[in-house]
């Protein structure tokens, strides 16, 4: 008699627990307002990433095509993967002194692990994070970028 009773209470409790779970899924099924999924490729125009999002390393330029990079190479030294290469150039200033400036700031996006040590260690705050994240390309060589724009120069005056 006892096992007979237990048999039916087990069935009853089992069905009850299943219905309890089903009620949760049913509640979400009938309340479409709780859907959190983003329709990603369709919402591209309105999609805005957070300001601090680490998409890629960029070198901000002002409207006169000038940047802050002196070409010291501290970012390249601090990079754990060697994803930054600095090519320096020597110029002669009008008063006859030789000065080192940056020729190319080469950034290998394919090797970057987005640790942020280059940006943190830069003494002149020349680098920052960009929010671009759609990096997929068909050719690997496109992932090697030159961060300083052609014809750009360094901001000499701090007030500029």
């Amino acid at each position, binding site marked *: 008699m006892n096992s007979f009773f237990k048999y039916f209470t087990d069935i009853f409790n*089992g069905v009850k627990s299943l219905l309890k779970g089903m009620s949760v899924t049913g509640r979400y099924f009938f309340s479409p307002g709780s859907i959190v999924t983003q329709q990603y490729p369709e919402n591209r125009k309105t999609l805005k990433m957070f300001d601090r999002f680490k998409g890629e390393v960029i070198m901000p330029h002002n409207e006169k095509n000038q940047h802050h990079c002196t070409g010291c190479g501290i970012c390249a030294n601090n990079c754990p993967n060697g994803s930054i290469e600095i090519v320096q150039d020597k110029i002669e200033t009008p008063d006859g002194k030789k000065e080192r400036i940056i020729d190319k700031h080469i950034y290998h996006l394919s090797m970057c692990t987005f640790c942020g040590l280059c940006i943190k260690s830069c003494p002149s705050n020349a680098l920052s994070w960009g929010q671009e994240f759609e990096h997929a390309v068909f050719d690997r060589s496109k992932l090697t970028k030159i961060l300083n724009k052609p014809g750009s120069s360094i901001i000499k005056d701090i007030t500029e």
Partner: protein
Amino acid sequence: MKEVINPPVRNIEDEEYHINIGPQHPSTHGVLRMVVSIQGETVKSLKPHCGYIHRGIEKMCEKDTYQQIIHLTDRMDYLSAHINNHVVCLLVERALEVAVPERVQYIRTIVDELTRIASHQLWWGCFGMDMGGQTCLLYGMRDREKIMDIFEESFGSRLLHSYYTPGGLMGDIHPNFQKRVKEFITYFRKKIHDYDNILTGNVIMQERTKGVGILTKEEAIDYGVTGPIGRASGFSCDVRKYHPYGVYDKVDFKEILGTQGDTFSRYMMRMHEMRESMKILEQLIDNIPAGDYSAKMKAVIKLPAGEYYQRVEAARGELGVYVVSDGNKTPYRMKFRSSSFSNLSALDHMSRGFKIADLIAIGGSLDYVIPDIDR
């Protein structure tokens, strides 16, 4: 005359049969190969084969400075990335005797607990999916997304943050951080009831987990099993209680111990831990003191020659790091004691005598992260 030799009669029922689970199997949560010796459907023994995702992180650390090591530790146990960063930072700070600002300690503790909740949410989803409930994965991922958004807004990335640095943090928290964490706690306190309704009380899940994969307290200590798995067996091993770091000595939380040591007990342990983590967050989030987000550190960090060991409580158990320094800016030798590796060693013992379907449930309750095993 030709002699007739009768071939020996094979009794197939007594023979053992070897089956490979993995390396590419959804229930191994990564690339782990388990050679399971079965008789009928009963598991006789199990040999895990590690190394499919070995990247030599310990060796790579030997060429990196202490700031650069941080971004490699992210990639061991990626589900508790912040806690992995924390252990290296604590080691360097203790070796150099740097006083870390109190604000940093508060933020680190809060972020660690958020990481723990996010890790357990993902585990809950995967465990439900191992048991055959696809809904659990979707709900677990949905709630984890809230924490990922908090991380993304403050630290810039969702999974591999590299946010801690020896001496402090890479940057200050976002102004919205406290507001969003409080919103998350009120949100998740409601949602965790759904978790209980869907999976904890489910009769199929209880039938499959209760009394399955039993690990006693003595065996847990023998195998070095820590974290929620060790505590489910009654082994009190919370590093946050025994060797407090951050501000864990100032907050009130319970170390919940199980008695059964079976798969269901391990499941309940993580559900309790999520509630305890929320309790810690509630105590800390309003009391973050003002101050700097980093102590003053030299650009080149050199540890004094010697040996150092530091441990923290990661989401899966005790994470230790052992460093031998010869006084240079890079460590001479670095060794990580990862929790998943020790926990995996007990899987053979736990699964013996159970069915092969139970092995999936036991493996799901172990919650191993394969890159943490192989490093």
